[in-house]
């Protein structure tokens, strides 16, 4: 009966050559050891539904590597307490005590969730049933919602007793310490060295994710800032992990599937176009309780750092999420007609000690005013290498327009060459440092052909130009971009 309970039966004849990150899990260091790599929560639906059309799914969940002690000698080895959301096909086992150990069969037994299911896990075990006529001890043979069957007595006295659960069965006492109700991995292994073995277990599980949260506290004048970055890790795997060495991965949403295969027959992208994932190793081991959320610091905090005020200007919202599966070759789209004045916002910037852009996440901004603490804003953080930017409020004094000066679509060469002109005007009475954010939105594979002001990349398809615009002054920026596929 045990074999029928949702187990995924696989015949495995290997000792895993573990995946890259699992291989770093150490070659048998002393004591229990757990390493968990968690991918960031997947981004929301794109404005134009691009991600859902793109045919690829971002990496999610977690890869978990645990060191466990198991006893080899009996018919089966049972390892309880693994994640309930474990992907059975991803399980890999490495015997650190006897590398010659082979696995002949593996099953994943999900955790029991109902009383009947829990008791059913003890079919074949000796249990005690409390009834109005006294305690009955015997071997559990069968159970359903209405009745249970015990085998009692020995030899000639051996018989089956069927007991009605409602009205007759008052209590069921199960054998202690078996753990069969928990999600478990069960193996049949062949080893020439019976006894206690240390094994390295690696598997992928859903239900674990993380998201970045940032905190910015400005001083009263808004010229210095305390900035900290936190990651909130949610553990809904059903398992608890003690002293886990945590690695958090963000970005890299263009997964391997996208690089090699487009199910809708569209053009394939190259590896160069894919966003590179960024890994954050958490300095100290972390307790990840089942059902808990844990916050850990993502990068070292900055105290009283000098902040800079800039005006960000976007002529349009980023259309690129809508064009990840196919390049946009329509030269009439977003070329300046009917696009309005764009959107300018006052923002503060602070340098952060990172080599990469900080992951997406919300930033809560406070300001100290006298003794009071004021909430200023809650918004998505903007970040590029070594820089965090916090938007504060729309700025009606900076306006602009964007238009395509030329746009050439070469159907045979599979290219679009586009020359863009962005004009900005500062109507304020104060000079402004304006950060013009432009998007190479037509397709993820692109290069700059020319530009009259040096740009910086703040995202896979985002360019930023900095321009000082005097009070009442204007500034024009031009650049050319080539898309290929």
């Amino acid at each position, binding site marked *: 009966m045990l074999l029928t309970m949702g187990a995924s039966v696989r015949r495995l004849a290997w000792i895993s050559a573990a995946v890259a990150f699992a291989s770093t899990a150490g070659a048998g260091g002393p004591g229990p050891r757990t390493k968990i790599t968690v991918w960031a929560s997947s981004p929301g639906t794109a404005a134009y539904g691009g991600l859902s059309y793109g045919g690829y799914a971002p990496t999610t969940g977690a890869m978990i590597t645990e060191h466990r002690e198991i006893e080899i000698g009996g018919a089966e080895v049972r390892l309880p307490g693994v994640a309930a959301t474990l992907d059975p096909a991803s399980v890999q086992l490495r015997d650190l005590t006897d590398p010659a150990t082979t696995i002949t069969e593996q099953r994943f037994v999900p955790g029991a969730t*109902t*009383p009947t299911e*829990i*008791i059913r896990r003890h079919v074949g075990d000796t249990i005690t049933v*409390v009834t*109005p006529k006294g305690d009955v001890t015997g071997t559990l043979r069968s159970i359903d919602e209405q009745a249970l069957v015990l085998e009692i007595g020995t030899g000639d006295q051996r018989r089956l007793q069927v007991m*009605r*659960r*409602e*009205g007759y*069965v*008052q*209590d*069921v006492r199960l054998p202690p310490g078996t753990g069969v109700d928990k999600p478990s991995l069960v193996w049949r292994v062949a080893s020439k060295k019976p006894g206690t073995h240390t094994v390295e277990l690696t598997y992928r599980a859903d239900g674990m994710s993380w*998201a970045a*949260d940032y*905190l910015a*506290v*400005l001083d009263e*004048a*808004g010229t210095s800032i*305390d900035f900290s970055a*936190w990651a*909130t890790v949610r553990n809904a795997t059903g398992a608890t992990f*003690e*002293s886990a060495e945590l690695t958090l991965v963000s970005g890299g949403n263009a997964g391997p599937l996208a690089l090699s295969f487009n199910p809708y027959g569209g053009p394939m992208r190259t590896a160069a176009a894919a966003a590179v994932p960024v890994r954050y190793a958490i*300095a*100290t*081991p*972390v*307790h990840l*309780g089942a059902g*808990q*959320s*844990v*916050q*850990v*610091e993502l990068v070292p905090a900055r105290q009283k750092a000098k902040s800079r*005020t800039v*005006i960000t200007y976007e002529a349009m919202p980023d259309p690129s999420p809508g064009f990840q599966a196919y390049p946009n070759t329509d030269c009439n789209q977003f070329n300046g007609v009917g696009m309005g004045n764009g959107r300018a916002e*006052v923002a*503060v910037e602070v340098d952060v000690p990172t080599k990469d852009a900080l992951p997406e996440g919300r930033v*809560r*901004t*406070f*300001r100290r005013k006298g*003794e*009071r*603490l*004021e*909430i*200023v*804003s809650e918004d998505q953080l903007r970040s590029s290498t070594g820089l965090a930017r916090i938007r*504060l*409020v729309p*700025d*009606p*004094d900076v306006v602009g327009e964007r238009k395509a000066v030329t746009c050439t679509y070469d159907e045979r060469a599979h290219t679009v060459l586009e020359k863009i002109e962005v004009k900005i005007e500062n109507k*304020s*009475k104060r000079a402004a440092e304006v950060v013009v954010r432009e998007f190479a939105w037509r397709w993820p594979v692109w290069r700059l052909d020319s530009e009259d002001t040096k740009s910086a990349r703040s995202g896979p398809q985002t360019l930023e130009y900095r321009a000082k615009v005097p009070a009442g002054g204007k500034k024009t920026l031009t650049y050319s971009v080539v898309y290929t596929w």
Partner: protein
Amino acid sequence: MVKQLALAALVVGVLGCGPRAARPTTAPAGDEITLYRDRAVIKQRVELVVPVADRATVTVTIAAGVQIEDVVVLDRGELTISELHGTSATVTPAKAAHDDDDDDDDGEVHGPALPPGPTGPTEVTFVVAAPHAGTFAVHLGYVTDRITWAAAYTMTTTAARERVTLRGAVAIHNTTGIALKARAYVVDAELGAWRGRIAEQLGSALAGMTRSTTPIATPRALGEVELGAGETRVELLPGEPPRPMRSVLVFDPVGTKLDHGGSAPIRDAMLGVERSAPTRVTESFEIPRRSASSEGLPAGPVRLLQRNADGGLSVLGEARLFEVATRVAEVDTVAIGTAEGVTGRRERRELTIDDDDRRLVEEFVLTIKNTRTVPVEVVLREHLYRGQNWTLAYQTARDPTKEGPQQISLRTTVPASSESKVLYVVVYTWP
């Protein structure tokens, strides 16, 4: 007895046998609560006693319903915080009907635990590393919707009706599951709207951007308050001396019901010009505000009471004080009835919309008819309800006064057995 951290708990087992367990001390003053219309922001100070220079764990309770990702560490002092765990404590569920001594015959198998009951305070456990043994302070910040409040006022006068004493109180209802002792402020605005204005102020200071002239709600300090479970009342105007009052007539045919808060005006030609507009003029009392003591007072109902010669109180009238619509007014008026022999009429003379120049011009004439045998002074209260961007281009009354974002008052004196007309022109613009 209210304590800031009533449930600071030792946690030894939560993080295994790694970090040592520390404990929070009895919290001194240092908490701060800012009450907004829809939620409250709490800055909570936690003092930790770390026995040795080592990692330590400590658990504190914060308001119920707060998720760990919504807790921010505002100030960690010398401590390094490596982990923050959050769990919602649960109230022990009521015992099941069968879960008692005589349930042996019910036939139920004793299975897994009962589902959790209502959510209790949230427990936040954090692992810290200290540079040395000692006491350290950490400030946490979070937002909760489990502290609500309402303000109410009374004005008491005598039979002479020459002076009035204003009293007010805020009733604060605390269902966070924890007791708080904190420096408190009340802000008469919703948090989202208010923080938008703070961001605008900051943006203007940093970048010189143009900012709205609409007045912003001012935080009102309530002093040190102790908020236990249930309701706590805090006096708003203790020891406020009496202020003068005088009788006036008020013509306010529209009220605030049509106010549109957008920057672009509503273009509906019929807005505010219904034929059956009320002609009622109210008999009212006018009470001047004291700017120093009135600043930041939250809006609420007011009852004007008269103490009679026999010591009893009678209600003369009711109104609302310190509404957003009257945020910059210099006087408050409380209506006590309909004025006999005086009526008003409001007519629109012109409506012009100029899309090229982005202007909407509207002209009104207010006519007050006085059949009394004595002259009367009338306050004409008008609401520029089409939008937030307006200018009073022309008016014929005396003392035009802006009382709020979309409210003005004009004054006129109508001779005995006569009528008086007041004309004004408002120009709305949009970006």
